């Protein structure tokens, strides 16, 4: 007992650290994933799903429309719920996303909004998260560059 008494400050210190660590661990407003996971999941568009694929999907899924105000409703999908991107991290919405066991599909009129929301949610550790791909693949280069060897570099252009 006497020996333990000698250690009271040691134990007090350790207990304080444990409490602080626990408080920090249950903080919801914190990113815990490594950015590498987002890069990996988005490799070669494997996180995108087309409208046709979506319709033939056998399992349950949850469609989230990120549009707000005027941008809403560019495409209509039944059973979709509207979560304006500004409110994406509201407690209510995060609970829905966290508790969903189905595939979650994000879409909005502007693919960059969807992409940004996707990274944020991916880094919050939400699984089975997809992007509804726009009609045509937005990441394909639709033009062909024709080299023009007749143009000469002018001295002042470099």
């Amino acid at each position, binding site marked *: 007992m006497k020996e333990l008494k000698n250690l009271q400050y040691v134990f007090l210190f350790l207990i304080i*650290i444990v409490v*602080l*660590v626990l408080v*920090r661990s249950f903080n919801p407003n*914190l990113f815990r994933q490594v950015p590498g996971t987002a890069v990996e999941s988005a490799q070669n568009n494997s996180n995108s799903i087309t409208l046709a694929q979506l319709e033939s999907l056998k399992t349950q899924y949850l469609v989230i429309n990120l549009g707000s105000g005027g941008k809403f409703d560019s495409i209509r999908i039944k059973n979709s719920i509207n979560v304006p991107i500004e409110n994406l991290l509201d407690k209510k919405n995060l609970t829905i996303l966290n508790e969903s066991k189905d595939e979650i599909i994000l879409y909005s009129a502007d693919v960059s909004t969807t992409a940004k929301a996707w990274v944020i949610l991916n880094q919050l550790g939400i699984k089975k998260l997809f992007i509804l791909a726009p009609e045509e693949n937005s990441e394909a280069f639709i033009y062909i560059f024709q080299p023009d060897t007749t143009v000469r570099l002018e001295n002042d252009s470099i």
Partner: protein
Amino acid sequence: MGPLSILSEFPEWLNLLIALFIGIGFGFALEQAGFSSSRRLAGMFYGYDTTVLKVFFTAAIVALVGSQMLSFFGLLNLKLVYVNPYYMNATIIGGVIMGAGFIMGGYCPGTGISALSIGKIDAMIFLVGGLAGAFLFAETYPYIQEIFLGNYKGEMRIDEWMGVSTGVFTFILIVAAVFLFWLAELAEKKFSRPEITSEI
């Protein structure tokens, strides 16, 4: 959120003032630990005094655990803390030369400075030798450049290299240190030289 000087973009004078105060703390801690005595430092290598090991490992672990904890609580961005680059050849050869210098001179630069501040004349000569060593290095730099820059491995971190998490590595390091502390105190008894330890 730290490091303060980078994230708050401190003016240069403030950064230098911080350096001065860090230096005061550094010199104070070294002197209080007894690192201003070369015979105490040399005791590490003959077993009669192992203060070096105790201070060195305790300090490294406190700073390591402290920085990891600050990072965990979001107070310190470890990406902005300097990590020494690893040039394998230069590090190993330089380390071996330093070891020889250590046993001859009885000081390392930090402890030499702390010993000079309390008036040790041998420390002053050690530091004069140090100036000569730095001069010699500058003059021979063109010839040893190849060793200096050879086998560059980047800012390699040991936990990544061993493939364990930082926390687990810290734990292993602590267990090793605790074991070494125990060993060191045994050695102090076995190789004790009261005629030296009573003097320093």
